[in-house]
Structure formats: C-alpha cells, structure tokens
C-alpha cells in the first residue's frame, strides 16, 4: 500500500508542478479553470488510452517507440509553453492590470489558455500512462487487494496534488509587481527543462548522440534521487550529470523563447 502511494506520488508530482505553474501564471485570464479542468480530463483519458496501447507503442520504431513518443509529447509541450510565454509578454501586463474591461483580451486569452490546456493534458498523459500501467500490473498480479491499492493510489495522488497546490499558492503570494516576471521565468525554465528531457529520451534511444557525456557531474551536490533533485527535475528538467546534447537543447529553447518575447514586446512598443 505504501509502495503504491509512493510510486503514484512520484508520477503525479511532475504533472502537479506543471499544473501549479500554469494555474498561477494564468490567474488573470478569464475562465481559465474551465481550460485547466479540460486539460486534466483529456490527460487522464489520454493516459488510459496510451497505457492500453503501451505494447504497440513500445514495439514501434524498432523498439524505440516509447522514447520517440515521450520526446514528441515533450516537444509539443515545449512549443505550447513557448507560444504562451511569447503571447503573455505582449498581452500579459494589460491583462493583469485590467482583466475585466478587455473584451478582446478575453478572446485571445482563450487562445493562450487552450495552448496551456494542451500542456496540462500532455503532462498528465505522460505521467498518467505509467501510473495506469503500474496499477494494472499490481491488479493483475493479485498481490495487493483492490481496496489497499485504491487507498495507496489516492494517498499518492493527494500527496502529489498537495505539492502542486503549495507551489500554486506560494506563487500567488508574489507581489503583483514581480508576479508576471516570476511566472514567465518559471514557464521559460519549464519549457527549456522539457526540451532537455526530450533530448535525453532521444539519446536513450540512440537517435541523437550524447555529445559530451556527462558534460559535468553535480551528483555530490544535488543528486538526481534526492528530494531537491526530484523537485528540480520536475521544474527545470534537472539532471546532475547531463549529456552535452541535453544542455544544448536547454540553452537553445531558452534563447529562442527569450528572443521571441523580446521581439514581440518591441513590436508592441512601436505600435
């Protein structure tokens, strides 16, 4: 039971952190909760479908289907986060300043929200599919009673959700003056971290070379398996001993989004 709770907690944590950031970053977008729930719902539905198709996915691409699938899901999320951040750097401030008076922003806010709903759905789908596989494995082996499994699963889910909520609540306490910068920095790092994780999957599948491996090793300072390491992995794709290719992906996405944000903001001022 405790084992079940722990595994479900670990799988839920990453998705919960992402939802916490998205929920905070969009607090002034009208009607955002509808989108968050929709993302969550589609993500859960998707994870059941992916779990059912797990064997098929694994067998694709000469046995590397899972890695390609994960990298694609992460890549899509990166694009959505990038688009959101660039859009917010043009409209976010007005939105925060005067949420209700802007009819037009509500409509474009909906567009930005659908991108983030997709991010949530993708995060839930990726982590959820593994949870479904794990739980169905225990259920099939008959080693644990359904009741014990359910209690463990719910406890793990609640624990992960609680941490996501703490992050959300903590972010809301940031004064309005810095709030926008803080959340867009988090979204930026989240996107770059996802890109580096996508690279890691492609290296694991031998689709990409690792370049230098490892580029550095910080295991003695913050190990991957430590609590801080786990948290940082969810937030910024932390890896104590990353391959050069992971770092290259991280930096490339970071720079690309920053350039996009600056460019859009400049266009705004000129107009």
């Amino acid at each position: 039971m405790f084992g079940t709770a722990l595994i479900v907690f670990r799988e839920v944590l990453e998705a919960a952190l992402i939802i916490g950031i998205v929920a905070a970053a969009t607090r002034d977008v009208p009607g955002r909760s509808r989108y968050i729930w929709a993302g969550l719902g589609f993500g859960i539905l998707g994870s059941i479908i992916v779990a059912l198709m797990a064997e098929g996915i694994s067998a694709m691409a000469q046995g590397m289907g899972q890695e390609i699938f994960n990298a694609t899901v992460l890549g899509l999320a990166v694009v959505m986060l990038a688009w959101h951040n660039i859009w917010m750097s043009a409209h976010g401030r007005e939105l925060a300043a005067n949420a209700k008076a802007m009819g037009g922003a509500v409509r474009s806010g909906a567009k930005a929200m659908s991108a983030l709903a997709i991010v949530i759905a993708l995060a839930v789908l990726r982590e959820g599919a593994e949870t479904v596989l794990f739980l169905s494995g225990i259920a099939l082996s008959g080693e644990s009673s359904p009741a014990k499994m359910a209690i463990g699963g719910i406890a793990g889910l609640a624990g992960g959700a609680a941490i996501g909520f703490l992050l959300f609540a903590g972010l809301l306490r940031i004064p309005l003056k810095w709030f926008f910068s803080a959340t867009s920095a988090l979204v930026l790092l989240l996107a770059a971290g996802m890109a580096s994780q996508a690279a890691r999957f492609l290296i694991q599948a031998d689709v990409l070379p690792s370049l230098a491996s490892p580029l550095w090793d910080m295991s003695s300072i913050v190990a991957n398996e430590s609590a801080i390491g786990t948290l940082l992995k969810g937030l910024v794709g932390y890896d104590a001993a990353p391959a050069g290719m992971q770092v290259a992906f991280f930096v490339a996405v970071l720079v690309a989004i920053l350039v996009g944000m600056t460019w859009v903001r400049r266009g705004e001022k000129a107009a």
Partner: protein
Amino acid sequence: MKRIVMAALVAVSMVALADGEPEFRLVIENHKFSPERVEVPAGKKVKLVIENRDSTPEEFESKQLNREKVIPGRSTGIVFVGPLKPGEYKFVGEFNEKTAKGVIVAK
C-alpha cells in the same frame, strides 16, 4: 548514381556495425533482475538489452543514469547508456522496487 548511393549506404552501415556498442543482456523474471550486477566498460556508450519474462510490465529505472523505460510483459526493451565515468550506478524495476534491484559497474 543509384549504385553509388547504395554503395555509400552499405559502407556507412558497415562502419556503424563495426563500431557497434558493447551489448549487455539483462533478464527480468519473478520481478528480479539477473544478473544483478553488470560490469560495463567506462567511457563508452553501451547497449542494455532487457528481457522481461514476467507477464506484468516493468519499468527499468535508474535515477543516477537518468534512464527510464517501461518494458511490457513478455517483451524485450533496449536502453542505451553512457559513456559513463567509472563508478557504480544503481537501477531498479520501479514497479517492483523491493525485489527488482541491480547495479551497473563502469570500469
């Protein structure tokens, strides 16, 4: 022209084969790895071929190596790791962490 391209492709794939990374086999049975200790050369990319003989899925996971891969029941999965620095790297079967444990030793 076609022939040249073909010849080039064959040459490239032969180089790739000759340059093949060392391969290590792991078997999962009754939620246990065998062998539980795998020695691999340091400083080289290696290929782990993991056969899951159980009927339930298992997730090969090593936090230290930052690797994770679900291996469905009765199937085989491949995971590339490294090049590694000399040292010991633990791995587990995440779905049966109590019994499925092992260590990769890079020398």
